[in-house]
Each structure stands twice: as structure tokens, then as C-alpha cells.
């Protein structure tokens, strides 16, 4: 009898909990990305947590071919939203989203008038660290910049996990305002649980003047950048 009461009570409690969870509103930033001419643009939407330009990168999503994206958040607050599309100058904006609410944003991107000043992604690679039996993988990105004014925005995005990373520069940099060095940037990824899948990885770089590379996606073979008219 006691057991029956306990089981019934537990079941009811679980149902109530489940309903409460299902009823709990999600915290989301959704948006539309388009050109000045209204053409939808695919790309990446990446978030900094807290004040914009603090370089505390959190999560991101792919922007689909219809220019739509939705980023689910664990909590509301202040975020820095950065949107990228190949051939366009990236767009940063500070946003505030309330917990349990959906914030809808529209992002309009303008094309790079010339690609001569853009940073250049030369190649990307994935290197398991043999000394630890492939439990760690180095993600590497070779970056140059004709103006030599790279900043901290050397970005890697793992679409499978939704995680965003600012990659580590080849040598230490004084502060975020300084010009970052050209060379091989890298990132250590723990691959103990699952091996890394290069298909999931996307890279993009913007320098201090906002000149932005094309997004480098699998198979990570850079193509000559083109000017969008």
C-alpha cells in the first residue's frame, strides 16, 4: 500500500515537473540577415557573453540560406552578437535579452568594397596530440593580413557543439587592442569523448578595421575572395 502510494506520488510529481519544464519559455535570440538590397544571406552568428568586444565567446549558430538564425540561451542578459557572411563586412551589435523571452533582430550587412585589405586564411588543419593518444586535438589556422592589424577575432566555430572560440595567437599579445601577430593560431580541443569531425568546423577572421575574411568551411580549402556588387 505504502509502495503504491509512493509510486503514484512519484509519477504525479514527475508529470507536474515535466509540464512545468515544457511550459517554461525559452530564452532565444532569433534574427534575419540580409544585404542592403534585401537579399537573405547565410553565414555565422556568434555571441560574446556580457559586454560586446570583451572577447568572452560563448556560443553560436549557422545562419541558414534564407538568412534566418536562432540562438538558444541558458539565461537572459547582455550579449555581443557578431554576424558574418562571406564577402560582407561583419556586423557587431550589443543586445539584451530577457530570460524566457525571444529577441528578434534584423542584421543588414554591407559588402566589402575591396578584398585587398582583408585578412587571408591560408589553411586550416586538425592535429591529434600523439603523446596523449589522440585525446587532445590541436585545431590550427594559418592567418595573414596585408594591413598587419589583426585583432582578437580569429574565430573557430564548432557547429556540432555550438561552441565558439577565439583562437590563441602564435605569441602572447599585450592586450586586446594591440595588433595581433600573423601566423598559425591554434586551439586545444579535448577529444577524449569523441573524435573531432572537421566537417563541423568553420573559421572566420576580422581585423581591427573590421575587414572580414570569407567563412572557411569544410573542406577548408580557401578560395580567392570576390567583391560582391
Amino acid at each position, binding site marked *: 500500500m505504502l509502495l503504491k502510494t509512493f509510486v503514484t506520488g512519484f509519477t504525479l510529481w514527475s508529470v507536474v515537473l515535466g509540464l512545468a519544464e515544457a511550459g517554461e519559455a525559452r530564452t532565444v535570440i532569433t534574427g534575419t540577415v540580409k544585404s542592403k538590397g534585401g537579399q537573405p544571406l547565410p553565414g555565422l552568428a556568434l555571441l560574446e557573453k556580457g559586454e560586446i568586444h570583451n572577447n568572452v565567446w560563448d556560443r553560436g549558430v549557422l545562419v541558414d540560406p534564407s538568412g534566418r538564425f536562432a540562438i538558444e540561451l541558458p539565461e537572459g542578459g547582455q550579449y555581443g552578437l557578431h554576424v558574418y557572411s562571406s564577402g560582407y563586412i561583419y*556586423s557587431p551589435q550589443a543586445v*539584451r535579452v530577457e530570460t524566457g523571452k525571444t529577441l528578434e533582430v534584423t542584421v543588414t550587412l*554591407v559588402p566589402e568594397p575591396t578584398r585587398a585589405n582583408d585578412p587571408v586564411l591560408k589553411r586550416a588543419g586538425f592535429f591529434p596530440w600523439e603523446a596523449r593518444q589522440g585525446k587532445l586535438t590541436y585545431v590550427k589556422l594559418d592567418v595573414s593580413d596585408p594591413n598587419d592589424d589583426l585583432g582578437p577575432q580569429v574565430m573557430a566555430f564548432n557547429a556540432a557543439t555550438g561552441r565558439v572560440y577565439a583562437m590563441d595567437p602564435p605569441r602572447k599579445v599585450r592586450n586586446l587592442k594591440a595588433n595581433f601577430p600573423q601566423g598559425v593560431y591554434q586551439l586545444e580541443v579535448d577529444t577524449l569523448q569523441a573524435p573531432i569531425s572537421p566537417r563541423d568546423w568553420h573559421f572566420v577572421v576580422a581585423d581591427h578595421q573590421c575587414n572580414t575574411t570569407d567563412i572557411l568551411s569544410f573542406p577548408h580549402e580557401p578560395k580567392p575572395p570576390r567583391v560582391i556588387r
Partner: protein
Amino acid sequence: MRAALLLAALGLPMMVLAGSSDLVAEGERWWTQSPDPANPVACATCHWDPAATRGWAASFPKWKPLRPPDARVMTLFQANAEAVTRHYRLCDPRRAAAAITAYLATQGAGVPLSPGISAGQPVFAERLQALAASVKRGRALFARRCDACHRAGEAARALTAYPHVVDGRVESLEEFVERHRGEEPLAWDSQATADLIAYLAEERSRCC
């Protein structure tokens, strides 16, 4: 022309009017054209929508979320100087910054002063707290340096007279503060100058 009318309404001398009109036109050129033909990205490339930029001048001084350690409260002139230094790579950004400040002030003529808050933009409590702290420091600074000769209300009313052209020379309020006599100079691009102007802007938004 609109700048001239605005300044005329404020009762400023004609010498200032003529120069300011030219300064506004110069500011529009800096805004729309990069000085570097090899890098044609200008302010207007990204900030192309006048409806979006119209409220900018009225929203200063405010917290500028630049990359650390540069994020701080800035005046519009200081923010413009930072932007043209970074984007146009000018060695001395003051002339361009003053002209762009005049241009944006003209674009925003009639928009009520609202330091720290831009119309249509989210409000961030932390940024307003930083501005309030800046105003507090500016009040103390004014009491120490300026109070003996100037009343805050009168100084606040002069805010919109800058930047201007006098005898062919462009001067921003920040540069005026720098060269104004005092116990020690306040650099035009310093936090202290931003604090002082933040305090005066607060006074002005309250009184005028």
C-alpha cells in the same frame, strides 16, 4: 545650413556660424569618403542609415564598448577620434573628429539630449552606472578646477557651441579644455575631460 540655423538660434556669433557650416560639410566628406583610396571603407559604409545615426550626438557622453583596456565613457569627439585613428589610420585625428562631430551634431539637431541612451537601442544598466560614476568625477573636477570662475549652468549651455571654427582654426570643446588655464592640463582625449563634459552634459540635460 541647418547647423547655421541651430547656432543662430543659440545666439552665437556669425564668425562661428560661417566656419561651422563649412565644418559640417567637411564632416560629411570625412563621413562618406575614406582618405585612403586603397581602403575605401568609410564611416558611412557601415553606418549608412541616417535614421540610425541621427540620435548619436544626443546620446554622448556615453560608455563606448571598445576592446579592453580602452572601453570607457567618452565624448562624441573622443569617440570619433578613436574611430578615425583606427579606421582611417590618421596620425592626428582631431581635425577629422571635429568635423565629423559637427556633422553628426547637425544631423541630430532637435533630438533631446539623453547622455548614455540612444533611441532605439537597448539600455544597459552597467553602462549607465559607468556614466553616473563619470558624472560624479566630473562634478568633483569642476568644483576643484572651474567653480571659482564659472557657473556650471553657464558652462553647460556652451556645450553645443563646439566644435567651431574661429579665425580659420577648428576647435573642439575637448581641445579648449586642454588649453584652458588650470593647475595641470587635461588632455583632450583623457578620461578626466570626458568626466568634466559628462557632468556638464548632465547639467545641460537638466536645465536646458
